[in-house]
């Protein structure tokens, strides 16, 4: 047998690379997972309640029941992701034992540790983490995250926070690129990010892992917007199964993501979709998920 290496950075980031240009959909049961796969989702996120229901119900939101995750794994051929609470490495160990394909250390669930995120390097399963700015993204990458997504404000159906986060990350990358070598140290300090990662950004002009968008995407136009702003794929949480016609909405968002630069196609798939999820104005929210984590 030829020597094989598992769980390398290349292998972990590589799966995220394969998801680029696609849509990852939140699903709560095998029926929804099938609808997502039929519509052309590149992966599903298995969870007990979509973020808008977590927001409505309140209480502590935890990792999903392993039984539900197993049923969803058995129902589709595409990758299955699942969420662990911020800092809850035991939940992550369970998800790894279940052989999920990606773990989302997610602010949508109630954080388990107020100071530390999960040390993600020892895990075989790759992790995705949310970020609102570049410093946060680089801290997560330093901890071993292999994919970064904007946090947005999950469960609101409102794209404004995801736009803010994507623009912030992009602006901060541009600032680093414009800086001279002597300014990098203070920039790393101000971002509270590791110096070597800030240097890498100065050299490459992009994150060392893919950047996806999550939080508030609820129409094909939203998907097109964030893809044009540099997101490489989109997560859709409540936006599909809280719309009036989930199958149609799922297909439309998949097409709009693939053809994000073609306004004629986005217009065509936006036609006759029925009602998008109702959503919230973010200034009226009692709980901001994006403020969880640091």
């Amino acid at each position, binding site marked *: 047998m030829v020597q094989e290496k598992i769980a390398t950075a290349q292998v972990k980031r590589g799966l995220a690379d394969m998801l680029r240009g696609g849509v990852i959909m939140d699903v709560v049961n095998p029926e929804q997972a099938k609808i997502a796969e039929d519509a052309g989702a590149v992966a599903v996120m298995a969870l007990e309640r979509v973020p808008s229901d977590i927001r409505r119900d309140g209480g502590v939101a935890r990792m999903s029941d392993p039984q539900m995750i197993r049923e969803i794994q058995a129902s589709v051929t595409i990758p299955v992701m699942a969420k662990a609470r911020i800092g809850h490495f035991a939940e992550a160990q369970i998800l790894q034992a279940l*052989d999920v394909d990606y773990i989302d250390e997610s602010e949508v669930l109630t954080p388990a540790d107020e100071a530390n995120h999960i040390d993600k390097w020892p895990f075989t399963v790759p992790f995705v983490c949310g970020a609102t700015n570049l410093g946060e993204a680089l801290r997560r990458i330093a901890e071993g995250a292999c994919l970064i997504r904007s946090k947005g404000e999950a469960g609101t159906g409102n794209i404004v926070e995801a736009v803010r986060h994507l623009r912030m990350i992009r602006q901060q990358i541009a600032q680093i690129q414009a800086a001279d070598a002597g300014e990098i140290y203070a920039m790393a300090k101000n971002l509270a990010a590791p110096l070597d990662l800030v240097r890498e950004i100065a050299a490459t002009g992009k994150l060392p892992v893919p950047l996806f968008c999550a939080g508030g995407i609820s129409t094909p136009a939203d998907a097109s917007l964030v893809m044009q702003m540099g997101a490489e794929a989109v997560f859709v949480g409540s936006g599909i199964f809280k719309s009036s016609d989930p199958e149609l909405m799922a297909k439309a968002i998949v097409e709009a993501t693939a053809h994000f630069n073609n306004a004629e196609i986005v217009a065509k798939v936006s036609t006759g979709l029925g009602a998008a999820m109702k959503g919230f104005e973010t200034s009226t929210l009692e709980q901001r998920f994006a403020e969880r984590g640091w």
Partner: protein
Amino acid sequence: MRVGVLALQGDVREHTRALERLGVSAPQVRLPEDLVNLDALVIPGGESTAIARLLEVSGLREDLAIRLHEGLPAFGTCAGLILLAEQILDGRSDQWSFACLDVTVRRNGYGRQTASFEAMVQLHDSVVVPGVFIRAPRITKVGADVEVLATHDHGDGPHAVLVKQGMVWGCSFHPELTEDLTIHRMFVESVEALR
């Protein structure tokens, strides 16, 4: 020379970069009109079910099927191999393919993501190249007209991981994710030889 890259979903950028490093023009293919004036087409890695659905709704499925059966050279990696293969195991019940490469592939044939791996892959003449296998399809059967270009031993003896039939090439792993251009160069040179 123009080698199009199917750009509906997946690691399009890496294939484009590999082709451009070889001095080949690599236009992106999203719609039927993008198929004109191509010398070959690369189908990238990604999710085969998602790419298949996008091929249907974009109208590319019919046009590309015609071009492939007319002899358009093609190179598929991972999901791209699945889309070219004659037979697919462990796929969706309605999973279709262009069926122009006489191999049987098993989707996620090496396991889920925790089993994804890197290994040096054996080419002919004892040349080795780095192979990145991500939820990779495993080639389980090779037709009589198919040439095996590279093998890998996963612990149960060497089996095919890079194959070609005529001008249709398929690869279980992702040469595009590494800096090694050997396999892209082999494909490009074989397309060049046709001109």
